């Protein structure tokens, strides 16, 4: 390819992503050190130039505030905890499904995969909204249980952490299934046969052959569920109620309700730092897929 052509093919997406993906993070980092003010823009400048004096104001107050007010630490911890257990839940449901699809005959695999993906092509918001009608006090589950007579008081399910778990598992399940399936379907059948020939019982073959060989898929799927879940806003907002504390919701409120952009930026930076390790993990897997 001609040099100019090659350069522009690299250059156009590169510059776009630099400008609209990387540079924004630098700006968030910068603004997390400024102070809120009632003006446009609603934050102070870090660098000042007046009377031939250069002033640099690095305000560490936002980070100190996050440290000082236990609400933020609690929100980070409960986000990580909720995302972690929801990921385990998605793995427990998703792995057997991926396994079953990978073991189906080749002609039905694609149709089954499409059925897994189809819900995520419909609106995320609407799928979460569907659970409101199912879980609320006079919702479908409670109505059904009460009409049968199993309970006479509705069980509070909406606006609990339980509802958030359901929402995350439900919304992110396809992202767990897909990478695990991709991994399992490539698994060499002769390995399983060899194991069976040598007298290994099926459950042991699964634990010692299949499971370790699908490790990459499990990691990718788990990261695809865990990382976005930590910062999830829609699910805790719609299903979690006021009780459920999650950091994505806190950031949203800092920004939209309190209009405190610097604190919202500091919340985002700390969240990014928390997610750096899992994102690197995911990146390692994904770049191997992209470059293979």
């Amino acid at each position, binding site marked *: *390819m*001609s040099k100019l*052509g090659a350069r522009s*093919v*690299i250059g156009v*997406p*590169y510059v776009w*992503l*630099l400008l*609209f*993906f990387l540079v924004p993070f630098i*700006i968030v980092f910068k*603004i997390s050190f400024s102070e809120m003010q009632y003006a446009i*823009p609603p934050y102070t400048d870090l660098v000042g130039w007046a009377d031939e004096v250069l002033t640099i104001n690095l305000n560490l107050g936002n980070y100190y505030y996050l440290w000082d007010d236990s609400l933020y630490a609690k929100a980070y911890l409960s986000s990580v905890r909720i995302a972690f257990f929801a990921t385990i839940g998605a793995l427990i449901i998703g792995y*057997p*499904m991926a*396994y*079953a*699809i990978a*073991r189906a*005959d*080749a002609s*039905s695999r694609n149709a089954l995969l*499409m059925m897994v993906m*189809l*819900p995520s*092509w*419909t*609106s*995320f*918001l*609407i799928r979460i909204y569907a659970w409101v*009608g199912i879980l609320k006090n*006079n919702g479908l589950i409670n*109505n059904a249980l009460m009409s049968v007579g199993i309970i006479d008081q509705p069980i509070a399910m909406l606006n609990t952490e339980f509802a958030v778990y359901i929402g995350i598992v*439900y919304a992110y399940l396809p992202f767990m299934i897909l990478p695990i399936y991709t991994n*399992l*379907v490539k698994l060499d*059948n002769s390995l399983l046969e060899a194991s069976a020939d040598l007298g290994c019982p099926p459950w042991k073959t699964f634990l010692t052959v299949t499971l370790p060989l699908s490790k990459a898929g499990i990691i990718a799927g788990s990261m*695809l569920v865990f*990382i976005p879940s930590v*910062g*999830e*806003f*829609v699910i805790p907002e719609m299903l979690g109620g006021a009780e459920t504390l999650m950091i*994505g919701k806190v950031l*949203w409120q800092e*920004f*939209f309700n309190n209009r405190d952009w610097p604190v*919202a*930026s500091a919340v*985002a930076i700390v969240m990014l730092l928390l*997610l750096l390790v*899992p994102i690197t993990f*995911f*990146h390692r897997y*994904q*770049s191997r*897929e*992209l470059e293979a």
Partner: protein
Amino acid sequence: MQTGKISRFSKTVLSLGFFFLYAPILILVIFSFNKSELVTVWAGFSFKWYGELFRDPQMLGAAWISLKIAFLAASAAVVLGTMASIVMVRMGNFTGKTAFTSMITAPLVMPEVITGLSLLLLFVAMGQSLGWPGQRGMLTIWIAHVTFCTAFVTVVVTSRLQEMDESIEEAAQDLGAPPWKVFFLVTLPIIAPALMSGWLLAFTLSLDDLVIASFVSGPGSTTLPMAVFSSVRMGISPQINALATLVVLVATIAVFIAWWVAQRSLRVTTKVGD
């Protein structure tokens, strides 16, 4: 992996799994035809909520804005994503490739609140120092959507490029075709189905986005998810069920078309021996 008849274990797992995935959607669809205001009590069949949906100017306006943004964002994302895939698969190593790969993979998992906030702060900073964009609205939403959709398109197109037989391109090159001609006459027709599924994926992602659009939108650019969200916040409304049913219908048709096209072309162009 082992193939053969679906075992009883598989059948159970898949039926339970698909029940979990589809029951909530099915319930929405059923109750969209409910006469009653109450979403959970059946009171007879009616198209009333569809009528109300189509008489709601706010919803219709928001839907129109969303469709426009999604169309334009998906189209731009396919161009950028295809370029990025070619860089990933065909360009070998170059300085800054690791950074490039990270900027492709990170948006796939980045929490939306972070992406939204960071893009908004960029637009505000640019507005302050360059005077552009002066106001936030459809343009800023479009830029934001193109950025995260590009990453998804790149993943889809890259996997197709990897499957493609490179020797066809080499043959065209050997016969003296310049690189742009090789791309438009050989590569592009072969990866076209992937571009189409990438486009559809980007279109739905853009149509679906609430969080990022909320951050970077301005007055007069309320997208459909934003309108739905504010109406859902007021409480449950059967009108949203009607909208959901339409979305499910359109998505199902689109996915079937994409799947059919992909199946057909897969048979024609996949590498020999695959």
